[in-house]
């Protein structure tokens, strides 16, 4: 078991291999579809002009992302009316939807760990090698279990994206995940895909 503290040093990322279980502690950010589209279009490709509080938000999240972790998660949050926020259920969402954006986000913001479920594709795997970074697989649906590792909701940005899509800044302790894509070009998802393809071919040959 690797205990990782955010920000995660580069050499620690390099030491992680596919299959390693990890426990993550420190401050991290949730971000999913709307967040990734916003980050890439406003600050990486700059197809879109910053507006409203965009610049203030990006300055606030930059130091959290540098060497840090972004979690693909749209939580159930209690305390929305009092702003005394608490994560009730907070499992990972399917990561592959961020495949068009994730590599750019990792490079631009120096993100070291991407957390989600279902794995990602070749663009993200290449970014893991360059950045360097890792993809950490959390257990999909294990939302109450994971919510218990969220010790504190520090703040939220871009709540206008909706509760699931906002950037929630959270402090976690011993958040459990498994390395399924490492900085050495290895992906468990690519391996399982290939092996199950071979099994499918055998079944269809029957």
């Amino acid at each position, binding site marked *: 078991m690797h205990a990782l503290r955010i920000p995660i040093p580069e050499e620690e990322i390099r030491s992680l291999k596919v299959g390693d279980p990890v426990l993550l502690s420190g401050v991290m950010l949730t971000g999913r579809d709307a967040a990734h589209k916003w980050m890439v279009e406003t600050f990486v490709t700059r197809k879109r002009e910053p507006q409203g509080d965009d610049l203030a938000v990006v300055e606030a999240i930059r130091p959290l992302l540098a060497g840090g972790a972004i979690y693909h998660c*749209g939580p159930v949050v209690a305390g929305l009316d009092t702003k005394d926020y608490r994560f009730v259920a907070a499992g990972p969402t399917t990561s592959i939807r961020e495949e068009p954006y994730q590599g750019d986000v990792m490079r631009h913001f120096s993100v070291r760990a991407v957390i989600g*479920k279902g794995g990602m594709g070749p663009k993200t795997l290449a970014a893991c090698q360059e950045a360097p970074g890792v993809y950490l697989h959390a257990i999909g*649906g294990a*939302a*109450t279990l994971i919510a218990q590792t969220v010790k504190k909701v520090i703040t939220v940005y871009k709540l206008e994206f*909706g509760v699931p899509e906002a950037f929630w800044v959270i402090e976690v302790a011993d958040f459990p995940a498994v390395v399924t894509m490492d900085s050495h070009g290895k992906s468990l*998802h690519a391996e399982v895909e290939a*092996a199950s393809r071979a099994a*499918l071919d055998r*079944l269809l040959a029957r």
Partner: protein
Amino acid sequence: MQDLTEHFIELIRRTSMDLPADVEAALARAREAEAPGSAARGALESILENIALARGKPAPICQDTGTPIFRVRHPEGWGTRRLRQEIRAAVAEATRRAYLRPNAVDTLTDKNSGNNLGDAAFPTIHFEEVEGQALTVDLLLKGGGCENVGAQYSLPVSALGAGRDLEGVRRVVLDAVHKAQGQGCAPGILGVAIGGDRGSSYVASKEALLRPLDDHNPIPALAEVESRLTTEANLLGIGPMGFGGKTTVLGVKMAGLHRLPASFFVTISYMCWAHRRRRMTVQRDQVTFE
């Protein structure tokens, strides 16, 4: 007719926070089948721990509380407009109480309504008038990750050697399971409809998911395909969460529909392991949950 809003809220709470016993038992069997120390076994251990924890707190099993899909079968005399209003009021209140995540997003403006109420199709409610005195309401909470890996095939599909028969059905279902990998939160449950038009086929594939895992299809030919597909999907080795392993699906439930001579659709709705399915029955003024 009594106001059922409070009971609908309770139905939603139970559905979001506890799994049917047949599903939990199937997950426990799946855990025993995986090698000790493997990632697959670890995933199932976390899943089972999470189920117990959610029930005890109580809290939603999964943060994606999905599209609420209601099937209401009512005796003559119940007003469906009033039932719809009560269900919608219950969904909004259950969201306020954090039993459900606000999930209804306007597709044109991207604005989340905040209370899970969208247009007439959100939440989804199907009404049917039936014989007898009992009103039964089935609820399925179907998350987006598994909904996204659903698929519809129009047979024949020559690339898969799939013709217009049950062997063709077998081929496309296995292809769909392979394409889904772990993305739909495996081990999943497949609802498969054959025939119909594109729309009715999708509805029937979801309705098949309301059947208990351990029941038997009354149509022998479909019962046989269900059992064969369960075995063969598990030979793909995709495993829990797509980590590789012995259990990729917990079960397959099939329904047959009449079709046009020109059409042969096979529709697969993939349900994640968090198979949140509950039934409420109203008999006179007695309300029961199962």
